[in-house]
């Protein structure tokens, strides 16, 4: 039973790409789903899409959301409010945070540890 991860982005392509990248961590053991775009083929965010993605990766250990900017963050927060405890939003950069979260989730970390892993991505230096 591992923690699920949902990638929320304005762009379906971006969400799917980040999810694809993150899912390769931990030999594919992490459950990562994408919730990108407005659900009608355009850029935007859809609470319904996020809720569906949460349902697909939820295995009873909680679900961590990572969001890109603006309405993705607000819509993710709303889904968190409505879910009541089983779903949390990580305050993390999208790509690095998703990779760190997926690695932790694949290794069997609990929800708090997956969030901490995602948030530690703020410190990943590239130069």
């Amino acid at each position, binding site marked *: 039973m591992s923690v699920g991860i949902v990638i929320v982005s304005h762009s379906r392509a971006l969400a799917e790409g980040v999810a694809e990248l993150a899912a390769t961590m931990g030999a594919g053991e992490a459950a990562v789903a994408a919730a990108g775009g407005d659900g009608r083929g355009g850029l*935007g965010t*859809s609470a319904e899409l996020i809720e569906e993605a949460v349902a697909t990766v939820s295995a009873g250990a909680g679900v961590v959301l990572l969001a890109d900017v*603006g*309405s993705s963050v*607000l*819509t993710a*927060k*709303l889904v968190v409010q409505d879910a009541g405890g089983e779903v949390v939003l990580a305050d993390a950069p999208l790509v690095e945070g998703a990779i760190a979260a997926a690695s932790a989730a694949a290794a069997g970390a609990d929800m708090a540890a997956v969030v901490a892993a995602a948030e530690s991505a703020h410190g990943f230096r590239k130069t």
Partner: protein
Amino acid sequence: MNTAEWIRLAAERIAADAAHLSRLDAAIGDGDHGHNLERGFAAAVAALPEGDAPPGKVLLAAGRAIVAKTGGASGPLYGTALRRAGKALGDTPDLDAAGLGAVLQAALEGVRELGQAGEGDKTMVDALAPAVAAYEEALAAGGDLAACAAAAAEAADQGAQATVPMQARKGRASYLGPRSTGHLDPGAASTALLLRALADVA
């Protein structure tokens, strides 16, 4: 007052002003505010309960539809505002002046909590917060529902206009830094429009 009439009039006004609101958003955001809201409020009208539902139920139904169908940041924010307003009312059959004040207060709290914006951040809070304050002031002065709602609409207009020189500290516009100044905030503009519609049905 009849909250379903307000949602219907709001949807009409948003649709009529959608291009303008999206243009405001194009200047400092992603240019979809008016059209997102048009879709959200059309969904709200379609979701209105049949017959004489209590005003709280009407607002809850409208809020849920707006969350589900809007698409931008305004969906969660206005959806939360309406859902909180609806919850504050519960099954109350009639909405009086004090009741509408409590509704507006609940809406403002919901928006603040979700968006974490304060006054001066160049957001819808800059229209909504002064509107709530003006409503409460008019109510304390003995105003009836229509007078209080008119005071709120006026304060929202002024609050929206006051966003022009502000630098955005929340939302997509905040990435523009100083370049966000000199533009009317689209969220404040749509909030002023919604409160004007409220005053017109009150």
